[in-house]
């Protein structure tokens, strides 16, 4: 695999950009090139910034803003370079002249940019400008001079040779090659503080390049085969049925989606008014209508809402099956609890809910009860799974539908509030004061704020700790 091909694999964005560049240069569908005048010289095969923006708008059916953004990316990655003001890799949507970078200097072709090449480039500049390099180039030049001092003669010789060869070319060609080279180095050795498009995150050990490193051995393939075999046997649902599910879910939830439908009285982020959060706090005296309606969507919605769960408990008490919810909660505590407390929690659950004569005995079918009692002899965090599922299903299939039809729920719906809408402030510059809220980290387990709390509503300068 060539280095260029490898690079394109690692940076799929480059390959795509190159495809765009190639189609931009298509003789029929590409940009119409012409000669551009640069001071007194005529540069052939050039185009204006406007040409680029227009072409992208046409080709991809996008807005001017997006086209300018995309065009800018092409310039910043060095695939197109400006002729006027060449140190600034920016696309201007006017008649500024631009040219396509020669594939020789493409990021994927000439990679990585070597120290030697950079040294030669700086040396050439140094000779031409008689020592008058710009700051960061001067610094780099001196640094390289120190670092690769042993090859410096070679560097200077190469630089002189390239300068001599350049003198033999036509002025137009010379300018073009200088611009190409300069653009390449602006991308690969950006001045400090400038955007560095070559920056990447930590190395990833992609499959393509490091087959040797990752154990793609027999175990890996055996696991894959196992997974595939299981997958072959699984029950699948027809697409038409699954996809209907999305339509239904969408219908139900869109009115509850603040980004889609707004929220009453207003979105705190937009108006700086936190009433919405106050009215929808986990425990509030009168919940909003939308919230109470949502409890009717599914059992997990009811259970997942602190207030909803409380109402469910009230209802279950009336039906003398409150122990089911308590049992379920205790099982959750086991599943997500500390490893070291498992035996204790299992014992506590047994004593409260499963032991014969337990005060809050739960009604599980005999088979599950037998299995569970056997299981708790060697307690582990999933030992109550079967029993928990049984009780969960019982609540979901039995108690929940009754809850929704109950007077309790109907009253909740009737009494639920619908907040009036607060319009966006007419004078946006009179920004509402943004008040802090107590951090959850300050609350005691009961949800009460700690007694001694510093006044949080002032901006606190936090010392950076290490």
């Amino acid at each position, binding site marked *: 695999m060539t280095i260029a091909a490898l690079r394109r694999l690692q940076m799929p964005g480059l390959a795509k950009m190159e495809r765009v560049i190639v189609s931009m240069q298509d003789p029929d569908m590409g940009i119409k090139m012409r000669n551009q005048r640069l001071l007194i010289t005529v540069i052939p095969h050039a185009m204006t910034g406007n040409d680029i923006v227009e072409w992208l708008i046409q080709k991809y059916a996008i807005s001017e803003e997006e086209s300018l953004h995309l065009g800018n990316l092409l310039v910043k990655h060095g695939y197109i370079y400006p002729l006027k003001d060449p140190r600034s890799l920016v696309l201007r949507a006017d008649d500024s002249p631009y040219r396509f970078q020669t594939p020789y200097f493409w990021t994927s072709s000439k990679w990585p940019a070597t120290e030697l090449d950079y040294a030669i480039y700086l040396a050439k500049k140094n000779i031409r400008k008689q020592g008058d390099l710009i700051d960061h180039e001067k610094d780099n030049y001196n640094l390289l001079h120190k670092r690769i001092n042993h090859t410096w003669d070679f560097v200077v010789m190469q630089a002189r040779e390239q300068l001599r060869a350049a003198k033999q070319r036509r002025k137009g060609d010379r300018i073009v090659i200088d611009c190409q080279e300069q653009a390449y180095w602006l991308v690969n050795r950006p001045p400090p503080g400038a955007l560095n498009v070559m920056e990447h995150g930590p190395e990833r050990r*992609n499959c393509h390049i490091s087959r040797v490193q990752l154990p793609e051995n027999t175990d890996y393939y055996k696991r894959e085969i196992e997974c595939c075999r299981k997958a072959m046997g699984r029950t699948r*649902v027809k*697409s038409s049925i699954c996809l209907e599910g999305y339509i239904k879910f969408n219908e139900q939830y869109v009115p509850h*989606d*603040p980004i889609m439908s707004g929220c009453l009285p207003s979105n705190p982020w937009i108006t700086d008014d936190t009433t919405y959060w106050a009215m929808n706090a986990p425990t509030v005296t009168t919940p909003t209508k939308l919230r109470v309606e949502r409890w009717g969507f599914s059992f997990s919605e009811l259970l997942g809402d602190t207030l909803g769960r409380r109402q469910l408990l009230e209802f279950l008490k009336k039906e003398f099956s409150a122990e089911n919810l308590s049992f379920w909660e205790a099982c959750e505590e086991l599943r997500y609890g500390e490893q070291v407390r498992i035996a204790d929690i299992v014992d506590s659950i047994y004593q409260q809910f499963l032991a014969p004569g337990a005060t809050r005995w739960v009604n599980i079918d005999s088979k599950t009860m037998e299995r569970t009692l056997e299981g708790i002899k060697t307690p582990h965090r999933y030992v109550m799974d079967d029993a928990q599922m049984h009780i969960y299903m019982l609540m979901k299939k039995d108690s929940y539908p009754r809850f929704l039809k109950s007077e309790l729920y109907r009253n909740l719906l009737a009494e639920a509030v619908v907040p009036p809408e607060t319009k966006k402030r007419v004078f946006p510059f009179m920004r509402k004061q943004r008040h802090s809220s107590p*951090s959850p980290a300050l609350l005691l387990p009961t949800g009460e704020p700690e007694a001694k709390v510093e006044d949080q509503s002032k901006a606190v300068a936090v010392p950076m700790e*290490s």
Partner: protein
Amino acid sequence: MATEGLHENETLASLKSEAESLKGRLEEERAKLHDVELHQVAERVEALGQFVMKTRRTLKGHGNKVLCMDWCKDKRRIVSSSQDGKVIVWDSFTTNKEHAVTMPCTWVMACAYAPSGCAIACGGLDNKCSVYPLTFDKNENMAAKKKSVAMHTNYLSACSFTNSDMQILTASGDGTCALWDVESGQLLQSFHGHGADVLCLDLAPSETGNTFVSGGCDKKAMVWDMRSGQCIQSFETHESDINSVRYYPSGDAFASGSDDATCRLYDLRADREVAIYSKESIIFGASSVDFSLSGRLLFGGYNDYTINVWDVLKGSRVSILFGHENRVSTLRVSPDGTAFCSGSWDHTLRVWA
């Protein structure tokens, strides 16, 4: 012995080809029940109107690339981590910084807020996941109470608390995911199956379920049973690294964002990919994805500095948001769906609504 070596190779090669052929047959099986496309079913859904979202808060304070962020359950606080090792807890509503800690490593690629709001977890090039209890006591040094929980053999790419403060799920460049007990640091379960670095994970929202999905450099998205450590389902349709996975709010599907510049939707019951979100003009990879509360919108942060907003049902792009000046590396919708937060290599975080 030479003959044994030969046998090894044959077994490896034959296993590999068996796996490939099984995968092919699996795709055929999956295709049999695919009788309609999502956008066809969605034809009768009303199209979305003009979409306006703006930056409502800009959080400045990180001195280097922001790599990850997570929301607190209180809907306004967030934790963010960056390349220079700094982890900051903000009240993003007021933009005040409330806590800050400097990790002993660079590239803190993962951070998470505990469900109680009383602790945060983070990690990166140190190959570990550490938990810091949040304290307001001025006399206490946050780093002093640090708990080292997870230990991997390569970088930590993602972490998430489960339903409580006491368990953490991690994903790593060593190709595995793992479930840990926070208090003791004990490894509860490990998940093997990815063929390369695992880059992301997300826990299923289901009340009864115990599953999560992970995505990696092997282009696979895998769904796991947390209890047994087994891979339940596997999807391999992306053409490049999967940077981000996120469950659809109903838990029946999940979305993925990849370096191949597409986002995709996979349905768990149909057991297949059901939508691709892509556009020819989008060239760079999607680094981070999340759904709006109803799942109608999919927000994608991309490496070309933009955020694209997709209509999940119709498959079209609704909007493109500009603002960040470098890669968008992380994006999460707030717990109550009122806004989303994006973090970028331009050192800032933005809250959009």
